[in-house]
């Protein structure tokens, strides 16, 4: 591979895996406790500099909870000076009015706050901690200090019927943009899929509600409804293709083509502590392995859709079929598509049943995952 590849455009800086919340659909690896070492402030600044030089321009500070890092303001300031458009992706826990002001002063461009539901009981049950009232206060503070505000609601079986209440809450908090993001089933969410996956009827209703609000409140707020790929027959063009625009740096400095990739045990992901980002992006096996189309198998290899969807999501293919080179099983042309339809049928037939146990994302459960892998 040579430099006819474009540089990254999006840098997601996962500053830490530490988080006060325990959402059972967290995008962090299930065995995150294995990676406890974190890049230092100067290592992050050097990484951001290198990414910027390669052409990255959107920068998300994420985690875990990025507010856990006490050097966040310093990192924002450095990033802003480099010309990044800086986003803070946060639960709001660990924030107060003063910190919002300090981040503003450091040049932070926008803040995205996640909610788990539209009411306190459900929100705090899925967050695994009391957070709802504080989140609301912080959302108001963010608006009061003149930021554009994005709210993110992950949708799942227990909250999706309340999508109108969710949108009402967003309007009340004067959000500029709201992501109604159906759960993506990786890692923790895949493990908890039985509890989280909504039924087709639920989705049809939620979508109709979202469309109604999109129309009715179009001058006030932008509602973005992210469809769940389990109910599709064509896969998503995940990350616009492997190693195409997106670069994720994990807390320990591992460079990943997406947040889910770390589960692929057969890939040795390079670390910014050892190798320059330029070498990682253009030259590493990890970033080249599923770039372009040469890695594809049937049915993708000769499929007309391959230039648009790039065979879907490599992580989904890996975790559901055991080989990342297979077509994303969401695709109806995949020989493994039944793995998706079976999950959907299960969701359809499942009675409300509190006996199904949710695995919350916390160090105790993560250590169990670590051990089961080692075993």
């Amino acid at each position: 591979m040579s430099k006819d590849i474009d540089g990254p455009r999006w840098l997601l800086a996962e500053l830490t895996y530490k988080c006060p919340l325990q959402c059972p659909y967290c995008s962090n690896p299930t065995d995150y406790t294995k990676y406890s070492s974190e890049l230092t402030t100067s290592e992050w600044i050097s990484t951001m500099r290198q990414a910027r030089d390669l052409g990255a321009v959107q920068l998300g500070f994420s985690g875990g909870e990025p507010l856990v890092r006490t050097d966040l303001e310093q990192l924002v300031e450095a990033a802003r000076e480099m010309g990044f458009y800086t986003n803070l992706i946060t639960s709001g826990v660990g924030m107060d009015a003063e910190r919002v002001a300090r981040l503003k002063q450091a040049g932070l461009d926008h803040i995205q706050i996640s909610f788990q539901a539209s009411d306190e009981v459900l929100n705090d049950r899925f967050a695994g901690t009391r957070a709802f009232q504080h989140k609301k206060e912080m959302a108001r503070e963010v608006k009061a200090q003149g930021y554009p505000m994005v709210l993110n609601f992950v949708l799942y079986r227990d909250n999706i019927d309340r999508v109108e209440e969710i949108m009402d809450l967003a309007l009340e908090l004067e959000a500029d943009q709201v992501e109604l993001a159906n759960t993506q089933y990786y890692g923790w969410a895949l493990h908890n899929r039985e509890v989280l996956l909504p039924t087709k009827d639920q989705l049809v209703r939620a979508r109709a509600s979202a469309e109604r609000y999109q129309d009715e409140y179009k001058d006030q707020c932008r509602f973005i409804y992210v469809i769940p790929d389990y109910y599709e027959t064509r896969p998503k063009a995940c990350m616009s293709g492997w190693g195409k625009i997106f670069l994720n740096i994990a807390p320990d400095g591992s460079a990943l083509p997406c947040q889910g990739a770390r589960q692929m045990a057969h890939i040795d992901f390079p670390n910014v502590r050892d190798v320059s980002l330029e070498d990682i992006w253009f030259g590493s096996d990890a970033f080249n392995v599923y770039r372009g189309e040469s890695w594809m198998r049937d049915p993708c290899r000769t499929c007309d859709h391959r230039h648009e969807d790039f065979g879907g999501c490599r992580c989904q293919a890996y975790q559901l079929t055991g080989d990342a080179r297979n077509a994303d099983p969401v695709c109806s042309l995949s020989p493994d598509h039944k793995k998706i339809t079976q999950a959907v049928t299960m969701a359809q037939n499942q009675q409300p049943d509190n006996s199904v146990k949710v695995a919350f994302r916390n160090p105790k459960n993560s250590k169990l995952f670590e051990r089961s892998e080692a075993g």
Partner: protein
Amino acid sequence: MTENTPLKINTGFRLQWEPAQESHVLLYPEGMVKLSSAAAEILGLVDGQRSLIDITHLLSEKFPEADLAEDVKEFVEVAITKGWIS
């Protein structure tokens, strides 16, 4: 909006030259748009003071050969609809 209303770039949007893409981009929460040189010329003149008339006038001076008025108006309308400017 009338032709005399001062236009501004909305909060959260930023116009910036990107050497790696050899173009101007408009940055906003969760996204960016790569701009044509014409779009960048227009947005570059949106400063919270100038109106559509002012912008058209300035561009006509800069590019006297072209008849820009309709294109500028059309782009400004699109940019307003997309929430980039107001």
